[in-house]
């Protein structure tokens, strides 16, 4: 792909996105003059850019959009709800076409057809632009009356002008019938010239004259068009002919066809055409499909209209779910290959590189001092100095690179207004979306990783959380619900809170369902706190929706949300008050590239434990350890903490069993999804920042490890994934 096209794709996506946002804004504030101007500019830019490439479908669509916007700007048109809806559809479709261009380099025929349909609905006065025929019933039929007999006699030297008459005829819209006739030389003797056109065409087609004129614009003077109509016939005659045609159709649809049937049908059709002043000469065929288009054409001409139109635009619902899948497509695509970086941040990195070069140049100087036989202690001090400055620079470099990867939340959140609007419309609910703190920044992986879970939570909330406007009114709440998405930074974590003022989660129902599904026994359910009951919705295999709706009940539940957030080392908390709403709080690390780990010793080997799971380190006297059903546990700050031996969990043999026999056990208290636990280890080696590398190759399937990190001495530190181990 050329870089210009790449740039066009990237830029158009941005423009389309901002245009959709502007449209939504204009829907709420129709008088927003600046918004309208910005929208017009965006559309204009896309149009201009698309003209550089062979993308007529895209260009014509944007062109019509631009026209409409221009009219609205001039005050000749109003930005009605329908116009906004169609424009949004047009933008969606444009982004689909751009996706296609990116993957396959061109626009597929289906997309082109849909483009034509949207184009038609955008064109004022509803002028339908017919799509290319595909042999059978025309999809988007022009009104009856546009029926033509086209006679086309190509010039003898047509081939030398690069023309292909057959191709031209073949691509006529609404083509129903073609007769080919030899012109001039009849036989293929020695004098026959293959490069001379010697054929003429007579075609019947159903399309507006303007469209046909356009088709034949390069062969003026070689084409004659005669309108076909049954106006000259009386009502009764039309009735007979119609019955006759209907009978032919019936005959041809019979499964068993006698030999003479085709000739008889051909004669009838030829005569019917004659009544319509269509001089057909070679009506014949050897299979039903040879006659069907002609019968349909003649019937349309005689009856004035055809059967109810099929095809055309898809039903509304289909459209809505289409929009939804499109959203998903754009969300996944959002993991873009490009990173937009503030120039200042790049400059900062450049400066650091400069400092690094200076620091590097200092090292040969130390080497020369060693060679000259300098004092060992002095040299060591000198080396440590150099080390300190290199260390400082690498720290800063790391920070600078991390900053480059930082993205604002808004890139994920900006798609939500459209989604909320569409889904709420579809569900007949009124929901206002409030987004706060979307300027909060986090690492690219985090921001992109949170997109899907967030989308799912929002969908769930719209689907199950909010009541219908009437229910809300009855409950004394405003008709329109409020969905709030708030992002902020708390320490080294980014927190996203999604809250709604809907009906809240009915814990009794959740528990009943969980027991029903066999996730818990009735006794267990009885003993659960409301908090624990709420967390059930994150369990795999649980869905409270009675009916699987096409929105959230797609086989992916909240457990997927939980899992994808945990993969990013984040946590999800939920709180809900019946009748008042639900609050879901997602906390994720700002960056996952650098992890802070606690280094522990166990059986002579070092293991890293992610710092965010560590609660505290304690020593517990053997005497305080109690055995509950063979498991060891200790009471710590009035809580029972189960104890696990890290070496036995990891199944590594202990060279000497002194540690577990010692008077005091060294215990690392960690927090896992299932609660607090204590890990018995041999000792601690402090904490450190490491760059975690995931397990690769054959080791990838190894469970229990989050990855590996390189230690300063070249050793490998295995970092444990506690969730998988405990």
């Amino acid at each position, binding site marked *: 792909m050329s870089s210009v096209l790449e740039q066009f794709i990237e830029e158009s996506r941005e423009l389309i996105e901002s245009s959709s946002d502007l449209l939504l804004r204009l829907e709420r504030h129709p008088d927003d003059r600046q918004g309208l101007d910005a929208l017009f500019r965006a559309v204009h830019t896309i149009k201009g850019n698309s003209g550089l490439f062979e993308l007529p479908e895209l260009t014509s669509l944007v062109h019509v959009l631009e026209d409409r916007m221009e009219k609205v700007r001039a005050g000749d048109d109003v930005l009605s709800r329908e116009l906004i809806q169609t424009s949004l559809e047009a933008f969606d479709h444009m982004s689909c076409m751009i996706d296609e261009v990116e993957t396959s380099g061109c626009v597929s025929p289906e997309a082109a057809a849909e483009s034509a349909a949207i184009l038609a609905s955008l064109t004022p006065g509803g002028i339908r632009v017919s799509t290319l*025929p*595909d*042999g*059978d019933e025309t999809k988007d039929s022009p009104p009856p009356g546009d029926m033509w007999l086209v006679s086309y006699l*190509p010039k003898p030297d*047509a*081939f030398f002008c690069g023309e*292909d*008459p*057959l*191709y031209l*005829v*073949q*691509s*006529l819209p609404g*083509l*129903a*019938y*073609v*007769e*080919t006739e*030899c012109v001039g*030389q*009849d*036989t*293929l003797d020695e004098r*026959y010239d*293959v*490069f001379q*056109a*010697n*054929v003429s065409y007579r075609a019947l087609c159903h399309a507006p004259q303007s469209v046909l004129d356009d088709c034949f614009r390069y062969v003026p003077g070689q084409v004659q068009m005669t309108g076909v109509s049954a106006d000259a016939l009386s009502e009764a005659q039309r009735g007979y002919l119609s019955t006759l045609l209907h009978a032919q159709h019936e005959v041809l649809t019979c499964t068993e066809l006698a030999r003479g049937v*085709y000739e008889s049908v051909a004669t009838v059709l030829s005569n019917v055409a004659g009544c319509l002043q269509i001089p057909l000469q*070679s009506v*014949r*065929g*050897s299979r039903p*499909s*040879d006659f069907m*288009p002609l019968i349909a054409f003649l019937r349309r001409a005689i009856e004035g209209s055809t059967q109810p139109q099929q095809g055309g635009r898809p039903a509304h619902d289909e459209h809505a779910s289409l929009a939804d899948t499109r959203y998903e497509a754009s969300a996944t695509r959002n993991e873009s290959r490009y990173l937009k970086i503030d120039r200042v941040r790049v400059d900062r990195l450049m400066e650091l590189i400069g400092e690094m070069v200076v620091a590097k140049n200092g090292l040969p100087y130390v080497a020369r001092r060693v060679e000259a036989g300098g004092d060992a202690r002095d040299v060591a001090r000198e080396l440590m100095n150099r080390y300190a400055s290199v260390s400082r620079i690498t720290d800063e470099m790391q920070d600078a690179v991390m900053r480059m990867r930082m993205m604002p939340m808004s890139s994920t959140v900006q798609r939500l207004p459209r989604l909320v609007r569409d889904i709420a419309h579809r569900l007949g609910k009124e929901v206002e979306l409030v987004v706060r703190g979307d300027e909060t920044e986090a690492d690219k992986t985090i921001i992109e990783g949170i997109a899907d879970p967030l989308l799912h939570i929002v969908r769930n909330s719209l689907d199950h959380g909010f009541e219908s406007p009437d229910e809300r009114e009855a409950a004394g709440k405003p008709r329109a619900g409020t969905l709030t998405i708030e992002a902020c930074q708390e320490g080294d974590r980014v927190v996203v809170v999604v809250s709604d003022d809907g009906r809240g989660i009915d814990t009794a129902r959740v528990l009943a369902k969980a027991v029903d599904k066999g996730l818990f026994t009735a006794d267990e359910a009885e003993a659960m706190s409301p908090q624990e009951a709420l967390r059930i919705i994150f369990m795999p295999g649980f869905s409270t929706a009675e009916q699987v709706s096409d929105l959230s009940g797609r086989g992916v539940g909240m457990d997927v949300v939980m899992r994808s957030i945990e993969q990013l080392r984040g946590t999800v908390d939920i709180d809900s008050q019946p009748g008042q709403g639900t609050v879901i709080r997602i906390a994720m690390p700002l960056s996952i590239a650098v992890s802070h780990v606690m280094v522990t010793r166990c059986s002579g080997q070092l293991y890293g434990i992610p710092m965010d799971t560590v609660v505290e380190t304690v020593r517990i006297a053997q005497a305080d350890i109690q055995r509950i059903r063979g498991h060891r546990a200790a009471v710590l700050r009035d809580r029972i903490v189960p104890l696990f031996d890290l070496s036995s969990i990891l199944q590594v043999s202990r060279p000497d069993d002194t540690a577990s026999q010692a008077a005091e056990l060294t215990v690392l208290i960690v927090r896992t999804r299932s609660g607090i636990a204590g890990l018995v280890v041999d000792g601690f080696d402090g904490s450190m920042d490491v760059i975690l590398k995931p397990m690769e190759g054959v080791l990838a399937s190894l469970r229990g490890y989050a990855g590996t990190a390189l230690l300063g001495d070249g050793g490998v530190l295995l970092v444990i994934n506690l969730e998988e181990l405990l």
Partner: protein
Amino acid sequence: MALIFAPDSVTFDGGCSIEEAEQLLAWVHDAVAHDIHPLFDLTRCTHVHTALVQVLLRAPGRVLIPESGPLSICLRDLGSR
């Protein structure tokens, strides 16, 4: 090569351009000279240039045309003679 020549048949495969017209004409001449009643199979053809169709219109033999679609409508005369 979109035209596949066999002793007594020609298969039109995919898009068939005007470049093949002379060869087709020569083949037809040859067939006529040997008194062969040829078969022209256009069922797998997606496009055929007018120059080739002109030859087929004047050549003896049977023509198989695509099942459906605009090309099928355009070649109906050939397929049903």
